[in-house]
């Protein structure tokens, strides 16, 4: 079963992935056992807020403080995709 995210879910990076900055490429990257995902700035911002304490709703709110036009559905869809790839796990609360 793949977890379905709700606004109350508290996403965290899965224990086997590591988010880091690659100065050579000037991009954030998500490292996992067999892949390196080069992230765009928005994706990196979302993942940096996935600390297992903030809810998806709070993450959306924080992103809205920084950017105009943050669509909640887009953030949900991105996190859902990351969960399906086992990069993000959730604590529901």
């Amino acid at each position, binding site marked *: *079963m*793949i*977890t379905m995210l709700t606004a109350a879910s508290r996403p965290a990076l899965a*224990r*086997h992935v*590591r988010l*880091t900055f*690659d100065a*050579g*490429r000037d991009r954030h*990257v998500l*490292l*996992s*056992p*067999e892949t*390196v995902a080069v992230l765009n700035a928005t994706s990196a911002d979302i993942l940096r807020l996935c600390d297992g304490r903030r809810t998806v709703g709070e993450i959306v709110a924080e992103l809205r403080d920084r950017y105009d036009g943050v669509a909640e559905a887009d953030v949900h869809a991105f996190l859902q995709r990351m969960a399906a790839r*086992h990069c993000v796990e959730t604590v529901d609360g």
Partner: protein
Amino acid sequence: MDRPFGLLAELTYRCPLSCAYCSNPVGLASYGDELTTAEWQRVLVEARELGVLQLHLSGGEPLLRRDLAELAATARELGMYSNLVTSAIGFSRRRAEELRAAGVDHVQVSVQADEAAASDRIAGLPSFARKVEACRLVTELGWPLTLNVVLHRQNIDRVGAVLDLAEELGADRIELANTQYYGWAWRNRDALLPSREQLDAAEPVVAAARERLAGRMDVIYVLPDYYSRYPKPCMAGWAARQLTVAPNGDVLPCPAAQVLPLPRASVRAESLAQIWESSPLFESFRGTDWMRDPCRSCDRRETDFGGCRCQAFLLTGDAAATDPVCHLSPDHGIVEDAVRAANAGPVELTLVPRPHGRREGTA
């Protein structure tokens, strides 16, 4: 030019096991003059400068290098993600804790089958019980665990039980990779190549497990390319994303490329960047300009990159040929002959074991 993401560090070709499907080179004796700790550390620094973010600590058996934790610590300082790829022989609690502290991110343990008799026979060493114990230690210490299982004619019928074992061990991932025919596996190909009937039986078992385990365990299943219509997109393109450093410092675009008739490139003579950017071994098959037809005019030339250069060379003697696995290759008959033999009835199953290898200057 692309910058590499991954480095396969083959720290040694010494190994306590003698699996006949091993893809290490047949001429193991030429690799006994292993890089020193300082040389490997320089390789890691140069790899990171070149863009590498992912390090596979492999071999042979990497635990035979006493400096393994030191190298893992260097990788961690450089910000790399490190995978330990091990047979688990020598993975004591003390060693495991040392590697955990040094910053190894993920551990892949090989098993040769789902139970001791079959696994130990293929490994050539009573090792299954130790492997199971090592897997439990990996998860106990909080590491993600991948179980690596190379499939072939002599174990693919057990794939369901292998998946059950992975589930019982709490693995996060299982890689079920059909044998690729390089090195010792190439020598043993006819005794390893499964029949179509075996493959047809395995596929629904894997598919059912993948569905049942979705969200709990990643099931990676690598099909045998001899049965594919098109070749595999080898290394995601020649010298595009990955590089390999062999125990003696030879640098290769893929771990099988030492067979190609091109000049060697070694970290003992040049920097990793020089080799990546301009050595003939890396330059010869980069991009698509080297291709001839049928690849040159094929819609899939950027999808599968002409398949595998090493396989093309092993099967045809010409490294620039289309991979004969492709049904469009003029040499496809070579693969068809091997497949026909694998399906024509009983096959001689005797395997030539891979020797253990030795380090120069040691007994």
